[in-house]
């Protein structure tokens, strides 16, 4: 397990150039879209993929892709939903009909194939190893969702729109989102200097989300300061001593239902020495929304929740 963890970090670093190329992609495509009546070449983290026409049977192997598709008005035929359909309801705020293709970690290729998709959207970290198999089933684009920053997720919406033959629609969606965020940011008091931390509580430790995680980069984008500045998105296996050393001023603890290490630590005499605990600035938040979903709508939700919880503003 820890081996897998290391390798995904390495992978992450090793593909920084690929991501940089992806960020430069809009410039390349603007000229192509004009002539795109037939085949489009979509650049993604594992290369380029030729896509023709307007794909309508899309399989999404991460939640963030489902949210991007939803914003573009497309209902995926298949989703790697970890066999938890209620999460997709929560992700979109409405119910859609799709077939589960298994877990995000290990999607069932036979189920994917049986849906006869014409586009597959896969995650760079979880699905690079099965890219050839996916590509054999249908044109596949690979994007970084699992450790995707806010900017990566925004760019991905445009790439997905491009893959659907709806590039301008994607740009419009992102522009609308930016306007929504700007209106929300205006409600945050100026001069906020406190350090924010999102920590995911597991049964025995916490995973600390840094400045380059999705939520951390949302914090940064709206002018807040993440408590840990790092190019590694997540610092996992953190004990209470590490949390005390980070000493966040505002602590958001993402939990699933069931007991987590937070229940344990609350009873620990040293827990009270964290700044956030002393000032009553510890908030439990939903793990799906803060640490699993990642998307434009999710970013808006995160900002709204911070406004309500930290600033008492709706």
């Amino acid at each position: 397990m820890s081996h897998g963890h290391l390798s995904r970090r390495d992978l992450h670093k090793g593909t920084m150039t690929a991501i940089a190329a992806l960020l430069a992609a809009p410039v390349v495509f603007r000229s192509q879209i004009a002539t795109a009546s037939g085949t489009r070449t979509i650049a993604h983290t594992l290369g380029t993929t030729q896509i023709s026409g307007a794909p309508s049977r899309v399989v999404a192997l991460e939640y963030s892709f489902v949210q991007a598709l939803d914003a573009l008005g497309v209902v995926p035929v298949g989703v790697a939903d970890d066999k938890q359909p209620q999460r997709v309801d929560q992700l979109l705020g409405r119910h859609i009909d799709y077939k589960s293709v298994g877990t995000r970690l290990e999607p069932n290729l036979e189920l994917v194939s049986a849906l006869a998709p014409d586009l597959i959207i896969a995650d760079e970290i979880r699905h690079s190893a099965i890219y050839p198999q996916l590509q054999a089933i249908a044109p596949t684009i690979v994007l970084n969702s699992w450790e995707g920053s806010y900017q990566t997720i925004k760019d991905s919406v445009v790439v997905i729109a491009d893959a659907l033959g709806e590039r301008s629609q994607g740009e419009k969606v992102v522009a609308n989102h930016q306007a929504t965020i700007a209106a929300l940011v205006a409600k945050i008091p100026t001069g906020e200097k406190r350090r924010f931390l999102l920590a995911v509580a597991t049964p025995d430790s916490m995973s600390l989300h840094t400045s380059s995680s999705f939520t951390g980069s949302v914090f940064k984008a709206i002018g807040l300061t993440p408590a840990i500045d790092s190019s590694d998105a997540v610092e996992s296996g953190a004990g209470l001593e590490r949390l005390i050393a980070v000493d966040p001023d505002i602590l958001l603890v993402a939990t699933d239902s069931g007991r987590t290490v937070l229940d344990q630590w609350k009873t620990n005499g040293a827990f009270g020495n964290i700044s956030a605990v002393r000032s009553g600035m510890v908030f439990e938040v939903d793990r799906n929304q803060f640490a699993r979903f990642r998307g434009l709508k999710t970013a808006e939700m995160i900002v709204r929740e911070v406004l309500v919880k930290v600033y008492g503003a709706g």
Partner: protein
Amino acid sequence: MMSDDATGRWLTGPKVLLQGLLGFGLLAAVMLASVGFGVSDLPAASTLRLLFMPDLSPGSALVWNIRVPRVALAVLVGTNLAVAGVLIQTLTRNPLASPQTFGINAGASLAIVLCLIVLPDLAGAGTVWPAFVGAMAVGFAMWALSASGTMTDTTLALAGISIQLVLAALVQAILISNNAAQDIVYWLAGSLNGAQWNKVWTILPFTLVGGSVALVASRHFAILALDRTTGVSLGQNAKYVGGLAALLIVVLAGSAVAVSGPIGFIGLLVPHIVRRIVGSDQLTVIAISVIAGPLLLNTADLLGRIVAFPAEMPVGIVTALIGSPAFLVILWKQRAR
């Protein structure tokens, strides 16, 4: 249990006493070092001052609520695993036996994973009872197999290892089907990262009772170590003594897994090291294991925190990294003798 002890030598022999004191001194040194070391920027000297003169400062809270319980937990878990290892090697008359290799740890793990992942609402009741149920099921199966008399020591060992492999596979299956592997990967590797006082209080009664009974009953276990026909001819009801040993193994290993996850190699390695140093007298082996188990586990835990600083390597990985080559060396030396 006075002078009729067939195996003769006593704990109070001057050489053993000296070895015990030396081990105790080493243990104390490692414990102090462990309290002094951590990710906070608290100087080691201050931690030691706060250890002996606690005050109301945040540093004192850190030392007394995070570092000290961690060291205490390592002592208790190390004791449990080492004593359980001695008992299971005696019970099965197999030098390869340990709570890990015979599936006791895996049984406890499976039950805890089931509770945490599949029935998260049940997890509120704590991990001790599921751990006992899981360890008990495997322990009972092993005891039934060994008491049935139909199995040789070798087939019993193979049965134990098979059970361990099946249970480990089931744990993997649950984690993969729920995509939750990341959540408890540290716990599953065996970790003292979550140590705090309530875990110390959880395991302490089991260590005290299990350890005491193991020491008091060591004479009976010693006869269990002889081959079964000799044991019976000495007037021993091997089934009941075997049952008591199995119960102790389950209680000691199950409670250890409940607070720290399945830590391997302590139970396998410590009995071998101790027997090499003090000989095979059962009482002496158990008594010295109570020092050697905590010493090995605390050392491994400290190393795990040093090598991966400022993160930490779960202690179960360190014990495996140290333990497997050490075990090979022991086997090789035994062959050479």
